């Protein structure tokens, strides 16, 4: 298993709160967190903007509990899309490590699974999923190495939301059979975070198997991050790396891009 990650903590302008969420995540044993920037996509063209540089958050990033390395903090963009025509890839994407999409309609969901260049598709937690998860798009997304995300913070806050979260998750599992699922918090406060092993256990309630549930907070997150990385590198063909070793040594490390993306997807 790979290291634990929480790929969605709510972004906020309140620096103190963000710091305390990240500190709590490190204390709970997460090695990677992603700060989420939620953007409701409008028909009119709009700027998404650059995220704040994560290095401004801390002088020294908190050390992950039980490990000797500091926590890794990333930026993530989530686009809430209600019409397929609104989704447009912009240059701003390159400022983010992961791109997620929250489809509001079945059409957008279909497009997100089959063609949009995203890493994560969010599953509704605060309302009943307004459409069915059909096999072709779900399998299409799995084939492309795109991940489905269930976030649990809403389930902690409210019992109705809990029912929505669990029932949406179960209906997703009926179709995807536990493949390509990640579970993240979506936490706005430190007290809404839970430990990785807690989530691996909670995953059983979402209809995941023991192994799939642990993968949903570890190996699958890693694969989603790699998927994001290959998107950044212009379809994985060109990759600029700071020169630190002689060039000939790096060649054998790089697998063919198409193969790599698929290999890393669990």
């Amino acid at each position: 298993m790979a290291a634990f990650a929480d790929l969605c903590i709510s972004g906020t302008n309140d620096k103190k709160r963000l710091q305390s969420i990240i500190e709590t995540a490190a204390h709970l044993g997460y090695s990677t967190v992603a700060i989420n920037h939620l953007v409701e996509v409008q028909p009119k063209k709009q700027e998404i903007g650059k995220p704040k540089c994560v290095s401004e958050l801390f002088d020294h990033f908190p050390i992950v509990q039980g490990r000797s390395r500091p926590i890794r903090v990333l930026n993530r963009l989530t686009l809430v899309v209600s019409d397929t025509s609104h989704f447009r890839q912009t240059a701003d994407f390159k400022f983010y490590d992961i791109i997620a999409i929250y489809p509001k309609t079945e059409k957008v969901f279909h497009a997100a699974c089959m063609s949009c260049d995203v890493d994560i598709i969010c599953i509704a937690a605060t309302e009943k999923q307004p459409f069915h998860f059909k096999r072709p798009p779900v399998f299409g997304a799995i084939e492309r190495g795109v991940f489905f995300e269930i976030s649990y913070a809403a389930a902690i806050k409210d019992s109705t939301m809990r029912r929505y979260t669990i029932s949406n998750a179960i209906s997703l599992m009926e179709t995807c059979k536990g493949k390509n699922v990640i579970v993240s918090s979506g936490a706005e406060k430190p007290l809404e975070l839970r430990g990785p092993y807690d989530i691996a256990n909670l995953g059983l309630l979402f209809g995941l198997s023991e192994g799939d549930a642990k993968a949903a907070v570890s190996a699958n997150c890693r694969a989603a991050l790699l998927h994001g990385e290959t998107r950044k590198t212009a379809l994985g063909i060109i990759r600029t790396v700071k020169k630190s070793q002689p060039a000939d040594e790096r060649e054998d490390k790089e697998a063919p891009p198409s193969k790599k993306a698929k290999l890393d997807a669990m």
Partner: protein
Amino acid sequence: MSDPGAVGGSVTYQRLVHKNSSGFHYMKVSLVFEKEGKRIDGAFFKQLIISALRNVYGEIGAAFPFDVLKFEEKSLTAVLRVYNSGLVKLWSALTLLGSYQNETCAVRVVQVLLPYQYTGGP
């Protein structure tokens, strides 16, 4: 599920293998309130867990026994003991607990152990 193993050379040698026959799991947990300095006692703590269980699993789903073996009022840490069949339910109910009597709180699970496994890293 115990199988008598191979009997060694001596009459006194005996070997038994038990698989999954430990009946209980222990959970070491701590309770965190958003407002610091809240004082509660063991009975209140158990009540809180029972209500968390009932919220998630209902009257019938929550009707399984568990023990609060130890509760430290100072640090709000506790050791719980639960039948194996109730572990996943108890654990997930604790995970999903977000508030009690309108106060935001969280249960941090420190360790989940077999009964005789009170270890941890150095």
